[in-house]
């Protein structure tokens, strides 16, 4: 809480800007975004260029005209340089103008409000007032990347709880080009509103824009720290600002269409421009920070404050993070202070690993796990990731009802990210076809170890029980650095890392839009006098966060190399050393332990199994044991089983002298016989089989001599439509299918000898016995030059006509 009655602007709505300052002198009010404090340090966005990708910007608005920047603007819909919105009776196109005011409305001009970066230059790209296509998006995201610093977008695919959509190939390229080459190589900064579909149980992981590693996804909270009705949860949300909530909650004041003001602006689109404004302040403090530095700054400075969520957790790097609010409420002052002294983080590395490509079934009402061990590509210097930033998971899932799926990712340190929650309205049967989920919840953690993908399918409506979901493949994509991202700046982040907090009663200076401009002060050697984090011990701190403590109340986590932070409890993978007040690592793979020894484990991390006989954790259970997924232990198999699955008597391999019948090990039978479970003896196979699983002619494993395999049966001669072919990988001969439309053939490919009705044999190919009526010379030239007749798909495409005429 803070009082800020020392500063006043003459803009008429200034007193209503509750999220910026406190106007009620009798009450304390919430100002944790610390915007005034950043202004007081002299940062107002000067020389920073922001553009709003939306439905246009009213450039003549009295609060925007002063900071309006023609070069940061374009009309993609009209293909000209004037982004003025199209006016209609419903004022449909007010959105961009509202967002722009939040960022850069001029201060002290007796009109409307004060923007967060009120000296920044502001432009608008009109691109939502027409058909939006991949080209439109790519053009908009790539406008003047060396001139524009920040692109703020508060739109996306439908927030209806049933859409899964994201940028097309061109927009993806535009993002990549922006972060690689924009801002003269420092990287464009893309800020994105995380989604408005909370009431439709939408999930922002299904929006490929907020879910992208290149965008800063921003969420919202009400004045009292509650979840707004429109908030969508997901793991790609990085930070949060105040916004609005139910009808009785205060909303946001900003510029409105037709040169007006509004105090009714609401939705998550409030939050993206606010963060864009704060980033503009940070860029003024340090114009050389990269797009990744900005994300690191947000992770480091955003705080849970009073935001209410039941899922706040501390990851193994000591960051508090939530699916609703990311790393928490943005702190403008901390952003500018950190930015000022920031050293660029090391180069980004990317390490990918894919699972084996085979179908795994996802059974309803059961948890499906798939684990993968990553070394963080330590063997490849250009790809080595030791400290994590973004983590992506690309999945290929086929499923009869997509909305029933829940997907979690568990990091080697035990951090659980809910990549997808159930979406009640999503009835699609399209599944996820190479969709990339993304989480920031493992930020700062170590990459190496076992990663577990956990999929739960809980049917919410009646479904065909025989149609199961399938995971076909998943890929883990780790982004991060091979060295500690803050090591190069450790001297700055140790004792000299401090915030300058205005002392009580000190007159707040109104910064440089007004007479008597003050330059930002150097704060390198100043002493920190503010309050310490609650986990700090009696020796105090040199900053407000848990990693600024000089000693801890409970336990210290981390080391000098990676940085230390104070925590109330040690995270999974550590045990609490009460004497030293330190969290110490368990042995490799242990989730809970009582000491460092490998035999002091009590449970294992995801993907590993507890070996009861040795009190140790193993990646796979020894021969003769199976994996008990529920208890994550190794179970001894039944005496006839060599290997088993989940239960001791569900065999998958047998000891010598036994063979598998279903999942039971039965005595082996001679060739031409099978083990009859009912009669408990070896019985004869069908005459066509050499080995079999039962008496029927379709139960052959291998065919008898003089028989050929044709579609799971053994036959003496191939049926019409099949030809006698060599088998690959089998000792027996097979009947293979002729090419489509052939009645009989001599072999594979174009070797038809007879055609089905309605087809004629032409050059040993069966083509439809019709001719085209439009095959003129030009058309035939095109068909010939593109060799269409050689392509199966086009073979019916006037080939005969063209061949006859040319």
């Amino acid at each position: 809480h803070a009082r800020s009655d020392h500063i006043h602007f003459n803009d008429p709505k200034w007193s209503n800007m509750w999220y910026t300052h406190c106007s009620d002198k009798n009450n304390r009010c919430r100002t944790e975004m610390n915007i005034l404090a950043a202004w007081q340090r002299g940062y107002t966005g000067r020389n920073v260029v922001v553009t709003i990708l939306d439905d246009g910007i009213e450039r003549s608005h009295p609060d925007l005209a002063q900071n309006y920047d023609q070069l940061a603007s374009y009309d993609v819909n009209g293909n000209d340089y004037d982004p003025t919105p199209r006016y209609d009776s419903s004022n449909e196109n007010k959105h961009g103008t509202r967002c722009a005011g939040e960022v850069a409305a001029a201060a002290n001009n007796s009109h409307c409000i004060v923007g967060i970066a009120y000296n920044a230059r502001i432009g608008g790209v009109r691109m939502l007032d027409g058909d939006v296509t991949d080209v439109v998006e790519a053009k908009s995201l790539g406008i003047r990347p060396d001139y524009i610093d920040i692109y703020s977008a508060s739109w996306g695919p439908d927030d209806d709880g049933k859409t899964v959509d994201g940028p097309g190939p061109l927009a993806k390229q535009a993002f990549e080009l922006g972060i690689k080459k924009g801002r003269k190589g420092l990287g464009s900064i893309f800020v994105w509103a995380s989604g408005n579909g909370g009431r439709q149980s939408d999930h922002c992981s299904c929006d490929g824009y907020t879910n992208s590693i290149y965008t800063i996804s921003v969420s919202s909270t009400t004045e009292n720290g509650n979840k707004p009705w429109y908030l969508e949860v997901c793991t790609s949300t990085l930070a949060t600002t105040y916004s609005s909530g139910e009808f009785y909650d205060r909303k946001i004041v900003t510029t409105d269409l037709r040169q007006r003001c509004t105090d009714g602006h609401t939705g998550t689109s409030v939050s993206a421009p606010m963060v864009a404004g704060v980033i503009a302040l940070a860029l003024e403090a340090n114009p050389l920070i990269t797009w990744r530095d900005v994300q690191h700054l947000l992770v480091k400075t955003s705080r849970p404050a009073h935001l209410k969520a039941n899922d706040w957790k501390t990851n193994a790097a000591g960051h508090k993070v939530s699916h609703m609010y990311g790393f928490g409420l943005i702190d403008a002052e901390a952003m500018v202070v950190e930015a000022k002294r920031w050293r660029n983080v090391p180069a980004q590395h990317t390490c990918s690993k894919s699972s084996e490509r085979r179908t795994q079934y996802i059974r309803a009402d059961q948890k499906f796990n798939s684990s993968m061990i990553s070394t963080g590509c330590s063997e490849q210097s250009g790809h080595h990731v030791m400290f994590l930033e973004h983590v992506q998971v690309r999945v290929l899932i086929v499923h009869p009802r997509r909305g029933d799926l829940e997907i979690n990712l568990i990091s080697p340190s035990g951090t659980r990210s809910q990549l997808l929650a159930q979406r009640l309205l999503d009835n699609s049967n399209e599944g996820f076809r190479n969709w990339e989920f993304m989480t920031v919840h493992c930020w700062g953690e170590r990459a190496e170890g076992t990663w577990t993908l956990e999929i739960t399918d809980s049917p919410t409506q009646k479904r065909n029980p025989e149609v199961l979901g399938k995971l076909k493949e998943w890929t883990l994509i780790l982004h991060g650095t091979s060295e500690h991202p803050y090591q190069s700046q450790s001297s700055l982040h140790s004792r000299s890392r401090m915030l300058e907090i205005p002392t009580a009663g000190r007159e707040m200076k109104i910064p440089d839009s007004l007479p008597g401009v003050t330059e930002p002060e150097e704060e390198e050697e100043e002493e920190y006098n503010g309050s310490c984090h609650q986990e700090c011990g009696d020796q105090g701190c040199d900053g407000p966060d848990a990693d600024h403590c000089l000693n801890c109340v409970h336990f210290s986590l981390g080391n000098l190399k990676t940085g230390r932070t104070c925590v109330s409890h040690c995270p999974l993978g550590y045990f609490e050393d009460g004497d030293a007040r330190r969290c110490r690592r368990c042995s490799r793979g242990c989730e809970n332990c009582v000491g460092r020894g490998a035999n002091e484990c009590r449970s294992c991390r995801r993907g590993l199994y507890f070996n009861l006989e040795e009190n140790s954790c193993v990646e796979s259970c020894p021969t003769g044991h199976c994996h008990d997924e529920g208890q994550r232990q190794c179970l001894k198999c039944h005496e006839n089983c060599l290997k088993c699955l989940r239960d001791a008597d569900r065999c998958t391999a047998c000891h010598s002298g036994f063979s598998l019948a279903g999942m039971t090990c039965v005595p082996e039978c001679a060739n031409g016989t099978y083990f009859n479970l009912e009669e408990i003896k070896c019985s004869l196979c069908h005459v066509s089989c050499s080995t079999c699983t039962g008496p029927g002619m379709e139960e052959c494993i291998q065919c008898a001599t003089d028989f050929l395999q044709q579609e799971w049966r053994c036959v003496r001669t191939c049926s019409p439509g099949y030809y006698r072919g060599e088998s690959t990988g089998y000792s027996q001969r097979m009947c293979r299918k002729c090419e489509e439309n052939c009645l009989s053939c001599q072999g594979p490919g174009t070797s038809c000898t007879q055609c089905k009705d309605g087809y004629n044999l032409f050059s040993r190919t069966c083509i439809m016995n019709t001719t085209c009526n439009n095959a003129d010379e030009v058309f035939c030239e095109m068909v010939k030059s593109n060799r269409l007749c050689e392509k199966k798909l086009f073979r019916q495409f006037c080939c005969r006509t063209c061949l006859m005429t040319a």
Partner: protein
Amino acid sequence: SRARTVFTNHWAVHIPGGPEEAETLAAKYGFANLGQIGGLEHHYHFHHSRVVRRSTFTTRGAHSFIHMDPKVDWAQQQVVKSRVKR
């Protein structure tokens, strides 16, 4: 139910040969070249005024052969993306 695809009369075309080649190819197949797409090198925005502006099917015609031209690496008729303001 799945939303129906709506095709526009705009194309994105990748022509490695450069801007002059892009002009030539646009003219050859009846398009207007609206220029490079942002900073994406060799990617051009083509518009065809004689193709219906919005359609639920791809219209066939002489312009379709741009997809097969050996000087064109990749061409894509643009579809409408449903985007909402938040």
